[in-house]
């Protein structure tokens, strides 16, 4: 093994300088990594803190469908739409529930097309939007079925909330 005294001072300084540069680079990388890890820790702690708080209902009472199961709530939602349409003597051309996305189980959505007299359509939308639990038309299109006729068609997507026990 070569003793350290065998290395000339110039060569020793070069070796030390190289080691210094390498260590400094690794330290620099360490600072970057440390910042990332501290950020991750802060996020984790914040998530834990928020998670310990009690969950509050999304809507005030009676505004959401409170059935114990989602299927029950979806059935009631669909029934309310069809009943209101038939009650106002509207033709239900289509009524279809939209399957829930995994993160949006509490959202109930349905697409429907109904047609009928202008006055009946207005009464129908009024009944749906004023009743409880709340139903809103997220997007809609209302058109006259033929020019000059009093019959109108509404093609809409209705939205409501389901929160068990509310």
């Amino acid at each position, binding site marked *: 093994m070569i003793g350290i005294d065998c290395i000339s001072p110039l060569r020793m300084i070069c070796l030390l300088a190289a080691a210094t540069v390498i260590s400094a680079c690794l330290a620099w990388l360490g600072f970057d990594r440390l910042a990332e890890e501290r950020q991750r820790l802060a996020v984790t702690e914040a998530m834990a803190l928020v998670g310990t708080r009690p969950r509050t209902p999304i809507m005030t009472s009676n505004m959401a469908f409170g059935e114990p199961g989602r299927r029950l709530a979806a059935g009631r939602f669909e029934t309310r739409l069809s009943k209101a349409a038939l009650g106002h003597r509207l033709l239900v051309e289509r009524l279809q529930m939209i399957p829930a996305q995994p993160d949006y189980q509490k959202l109930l959505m349905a697409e429907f097309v109904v047609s009928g007299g202008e006055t009946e359509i207005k009464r129908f939308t009024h009944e749906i939007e004023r009743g409880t639990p709340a139903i*809103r038309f997220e997007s809609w299109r209302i058109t006259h079925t033929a020019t000059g006729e009093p019959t109108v068609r509404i093609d809409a997507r209705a939205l409501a909330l389901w929160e068990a026990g509310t």
Partner: protein
Amino acid sequence: MRSDPVTRFRCAALRSSGATDIRIVHALNADAARERLIAAGLEPLTIEAVGPSLTQRLAGRLHDTWRHFRVRQDQIAPPGATADATPILKLLLPIARWLMAGSLALMLGTWSLVLITMGWTDHVRREQAAAIVSYRDHVTDARIRTLAQSAMLAPSLTETLGHLAAILPAETSLSAATRDRTGALWIELDTSDPDLFRPILVDDPIFRSMKEVSQVQTNEGTIRITWKGVPR
């Protein structure tokens, strides 16, 4: 360079079939090369000494350079020559050592902190696993709340149609109305005189931000105007 590089011979020889063959033979001298050809079943015609190959010359050059470098190093700093170093080098050496030690300590300290932080994060994740799962439910609730609020707070279909019916002049009829998922509203109106309706819509507090986007003649002789905007 090596003193006797001529160990390669370019030989022309006849095969037993009568065909000519040219080979490079490595041997000590021409006689040895001839013997090797005969042993290989060839009849030598010419044997010509050639110089070292390109690879051999390159290896020799590298060897010489390395030897020269070693000699110079020994002249500059013979073994155990630390005591004879120049004063500037003597001064620089401890500084370089301190700098290296500092840099090394900094690196070790930083990476130690990284490991400690990672360990602590894992600890928090394990200890607060239930709370973190609950946090995801909070986030989902917040998203749904935002979506529901935008749908609930936007002017309802009944309000929109009622308001339109209230402000439309008798000469104007609503042909179609659409609201998309972003809340933008399109109104298509049939009128005989667009100038009758324009000031009404411009002055209306709800439809003030709407802009006229198209105007076409219908088969009935009326003009269909389309307005677009986000009602307030």
